[in-house]
């Protein structure tokens, strides 16, 4: 027995040690990963971020050097604080505070003392730098926007946040990432791949040489340059026209789906979101809840489309063979069911056929068409679904799939939608005739509308709208080069297109004609509401206009909407016709129209909800003319633009 004590103690100790080893090395040890080894310091070599060019090869975004003053606190010696502070433009208090903070982080390791010094400040500082021991200047690369336009398209870059770092191990604290616009959607193309050097550290955090003699180190892959579909000149012109107004312009090239122009107003200069001023400027833009400059209206403003939607109903009616182009409907200043007026209309000739129905934008005509479509089937549920599928084939009611911020889905109701709303089969076509004139439950975004007219202009197909034209040494996603077909047969388009052409000839857009260009378009208004002091109040209608031109083989399809601009041709139509002329002819012949748009502001309209006075909308709204001085400024911008 006595001899067992040491035997057992030895065996027990052996078992205990092996269990402990198992616990430490197998059970609780995470899979060893070189990237998480804090004995290895990783030094990153950041590649050049790719440039962005417009469709005509104009450089829009490049890089600029930026200079950060770095400090290693333990090496700092007594210095002329006053002179140093004036050189780097900070005050003494900030100097002391920053130095303290750096010391707290580490006295041996460098930390940023002042970031984003301007080139001029750097030039002066550089000569005197050697006087300040412990400080040195580190060069970094920042974005440089060669233009003041297209902030919503180009986007910006900023430091990654923790959510992204957790999701994508490529990004480390302090790395830059595209935040908006193409900077975000083509982040991986533009950024390249950073190189990494692994350096063995010792316990004092000193470098003691390359890890494994640098065998695992990688060299950076440069970012690729991209060309976007935007026409910078047209974009600048669009932004100029939208001065003092809110809204969006989307212009698409129907034959390719390329987005020519994408204006969201009010906008901001993209150079605001660079360098030292970035966080201050960003929070100012972000917190501006009245103008919402960061809200991309072209992609996100979702409203009932109004009259432009009528063209679709005409197409569906023809496709479903419930009407012919010659069928005439009566209009008694509105549509009546029995003695009850379901919708009003303005004064025009009656009865009218399809061509005039479109050109005059007759509500009663389209309610009749719509009812015939829905009532073609025994159950309105089936009719509704057929109608809904036709509408959706134009890219409405769902994400379009473009390569920009995801935007909004819009809304296209179907049978289930109304079953949920009214109860199963407890409704009929008369319950939702507003859909006939684009005012009911249908909602769209401007880019969806532009795409819809592109599909009409193409007579039945469209390419998914996109912003990317070419990638240096790469190809663009094939979904942007494959056409998508609508459910409407080609032959049904001609009469509808003729109607849209007659909008300019004899209809609601007569005043908007452009010499030598056959434009097909449709005016519209969108009712809109706002919560004021908790009460839902109606505001002046949004002015909406869609068009494509020329009539045969269209080069441009456009959707313009101007918030609270009232009727369609009042603001949106004028802007659309100017953009079309600019794009096709390259110059403007109707100077008066251009001047009118520049001169007129809707700021008085936008101030109404905040004035505290009772709202006076639509026919009570008055045109506001901007001050002479401001007008001259805009004219100057215009002439600069023309000279480019």
């Amino acid at each position, binding site marked *: 027995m*006595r001899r067992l004590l*040491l035997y057992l103690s*030895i065996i027990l100790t*052996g078992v*205990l*040690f092996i269990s402990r080893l198992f616990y430490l090395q197998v059970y609780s040890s995470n899979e060893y990963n070189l990237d998480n080894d804090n004995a290895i310091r990783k030094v990153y070599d950041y590649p050049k971020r790719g440039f962005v060019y417009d469709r005509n090869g104009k450089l829009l975004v490049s890089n600029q050097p930026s200079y950060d003053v770095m400090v290693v606190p333990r090496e700092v010696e007594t210095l002329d604080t006053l002179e140093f502070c004036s050189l780097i433009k900070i005050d003494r208090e900030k100097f002391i505070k920053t130095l303290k903070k750096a010391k707290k982080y580490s006295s041996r390791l460098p930390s940023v003392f002042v970031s984003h010094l301007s080139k001029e400040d750097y030039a002066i500082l550089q000569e005197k730098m050697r006087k300040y021991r412990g400080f040195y200047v580190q060069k970094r690369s920042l974005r440089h926007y060669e233009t003041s336009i297209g902030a919503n398209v180009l986007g910006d870059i900023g430091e990654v946040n923790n959510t992204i770092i957790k999701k994508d191990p490529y990004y480390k604290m302090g790395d830059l990432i595209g935040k908006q616009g193409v900077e975000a959607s083509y982040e991986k193309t533009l950024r390249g791949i950073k190189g990494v050097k692994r350096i063995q550290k010792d*316990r004092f955090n000193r470098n003691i040489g390359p890890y494994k003699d640098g065998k695992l180190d990688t060299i950076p892959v440069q970012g690729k340059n991209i060309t976007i579909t935007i026409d910078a000149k047209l974009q600048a012109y669009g932004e100029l026209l939208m001065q003092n107004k809110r809204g969006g312009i989307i212009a698409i090239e129907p034959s390719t789906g390329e987005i020519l122009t994408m204006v969201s107003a009010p906008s901001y200069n993209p150079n605001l979101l660079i360098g030292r001023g970035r966080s201050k400027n960003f929070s100012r833009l972000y917190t501006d809840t009245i103008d919402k400059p960061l809200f991309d209206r072209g992609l996100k403003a979702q409203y009932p489309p109004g009259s432009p939607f009528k063209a679709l109903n005409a197409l569906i009616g023809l496709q479903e063979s419930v009407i012919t182009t010659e069928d005439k409907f009566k209009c008694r200043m509105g549509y009546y069911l029995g003695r009850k007026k379901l919708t009003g209309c303005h004064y025009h000739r009656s009865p009218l056929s399809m061509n005039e129905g479109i050109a005059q934008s007759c509500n009663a005509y389209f309610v009749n068409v719509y009812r015939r479509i829905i009532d073609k089937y025994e159950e309105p549920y089936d009719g509704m679904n057929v109608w809904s599928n036709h509408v959706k084939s134009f890219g409405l009611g769902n994400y379009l799939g473009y390569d920009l911020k995801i935007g909004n889905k819009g809304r296209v109701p179907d049978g289930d939608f109304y079953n949920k709303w009214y109860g199963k089969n407890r409704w009929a076509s008369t319950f939702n005739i507003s859909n006939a004139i684009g005012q009911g439950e249908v909602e769209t975004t401007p880019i969806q509308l532009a795409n819809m007219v592109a599909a009409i202009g193409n007579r039945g197909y469209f390419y998914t709208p996109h912003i990317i034209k070419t990638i240096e040494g790469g190809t663009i996603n094939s979904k942007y080069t494959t056409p998508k077909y609508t459910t409407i047969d080609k032959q049904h388009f001609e009469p509808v297109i003729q109607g849209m052409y007659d909008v300019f000839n004899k209809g609601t857009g007569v005043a908007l004609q452009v010499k030598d260009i056959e434009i097909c378009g449709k005016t519209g208004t969108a009712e809109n509401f706002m919560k004021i002091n908790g009460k839902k109040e109606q505001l002046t209608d949004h002015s909406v206009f869609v068009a494509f031109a020329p009539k045969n083989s269209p080069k441009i399809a456009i959707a313009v909407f101007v918030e609270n601009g009232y009727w369609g041709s009042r603001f949106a139509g004028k802007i659309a016709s100017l953009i079309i002329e600019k794009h096709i002819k390259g110059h403007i012949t109707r100077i008066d129209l251009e001047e009118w748009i520049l001169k007129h502001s809707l700021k008085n309209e936008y101030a109404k909800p905040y004035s505290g006075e009772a709202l006076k909308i639509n026919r009570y709204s008055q045109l506001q003319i901007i001050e002479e001085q401001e007008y001259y400024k805009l004219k100057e911008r215009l002439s600069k633009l023309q000279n480019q």
Partner: protein
Amino acid sequence: MLRETNRHFKFDWTTIILFLLLVSFGYLNILSASHSGSSVNYFNLSQPYGKQLVFIFFTFGLIIILLSIDTKFYERFSSIIYIISILSLIGLFIFGKNVNGATSWYGIGGLTIQPSEFAKTGTALAVAKHISDLNTDIKNLKDQIQTFIIILIPALLIILQNDTGSTLVYVAFFFVLYREGLPQIYLTLGIIAIVIAVSSLKFGSVVASIIIIITITVYYFLNKKRPPILQSIFILIICIGLSFIVNFFYKSVIPPHQKDRMNLWLRLEKDPIKLERMKKTFAYNLNESEKAISSGGVTGKGFMEGTRTTGKFVPEQHTDYIFSTVGEEWGFLGSAFVVITFVLLLLRILHLAELQKSQFSRVYGYGVAGIIFMHFLINIGMVMGLIPTIGIPLPLFSYGGSGLWAFTILLFIFVKLDSNRINEW
């Protein structure tokens, strides 16, 4: 001639192979822990790995000498070896050199020698000699006291030199004495005292007392013979008293820096800020060594590939913390291999000791096993955070000439004694 050859083959080759395995694997890890840069000059005498190679070289000479000396010499001269050991320890108070707070080194030229390493062998020989004396009976109190004195003299001298770790090794002789018939009561009391002390610190005196009361009551009623009630109550009071005394002692007498170590070991410190601070101060080594071991995973990062070893994150890694190199570079498999090799060596020594016909050889063998076991237990236990930090090398493995030679002498005297067991009577 025939007799001569036979004698060489009587050495226990299992022990010798295990010894060689540990020494050579130890050398590889010292090389890894102490080299810097990519090119290694194996004979660079300014570096630990170069020196260790020289130490190992001399070890083979030492082994030949040890095995050539006649068996009778060790038994006959054990008292003299013991006295020389004691004198060398006393000499430290006059000529000693202070390294890391312990005055346990002689400096001769560039070399340093640590006599406490050799004193263990002297003590083992002396204890063996004393117990195997025909006049000694360990069951007698007088002989017990005499034996204790033999053990305590070097132990006390070493503790006076502020080398707590080496002193603890002398607990090894308890195993020896117990095997040779030390009364059971020492073991029982020892275990009970340790259990009460540790549980009082960990759970507090009140909880510990409740456990003691329950245990003794249950024992009292389950025991068919029913021990006298007064005796049971007396034992109960002593135990509870001990529990409170330990806590009182811990709170008011133990210096704070040692208390921190105990707190960390007993996992009593819950404050994360204080824990972080501990990891940066006295627990730095332990924390780094645990991290290095954990990072090795199952198979390790490979020889000379350990990032924490190369970066010298674990201080003293080539000496006391050498096992963390094994953990990082050779992983669970390599570490378990080292643990198993030690266990096999120890069991082999014990097995041989039991086979000895002479009591001297058997007691000495037990002493060898006990001493190596204590080093093994304390060193690896410490490096893995199982016991509080106590500086003590891993036998045959850690860097250091004194240690390597002392353990070689300790072990090979036994190998020599064992080779002669057939001739013994």
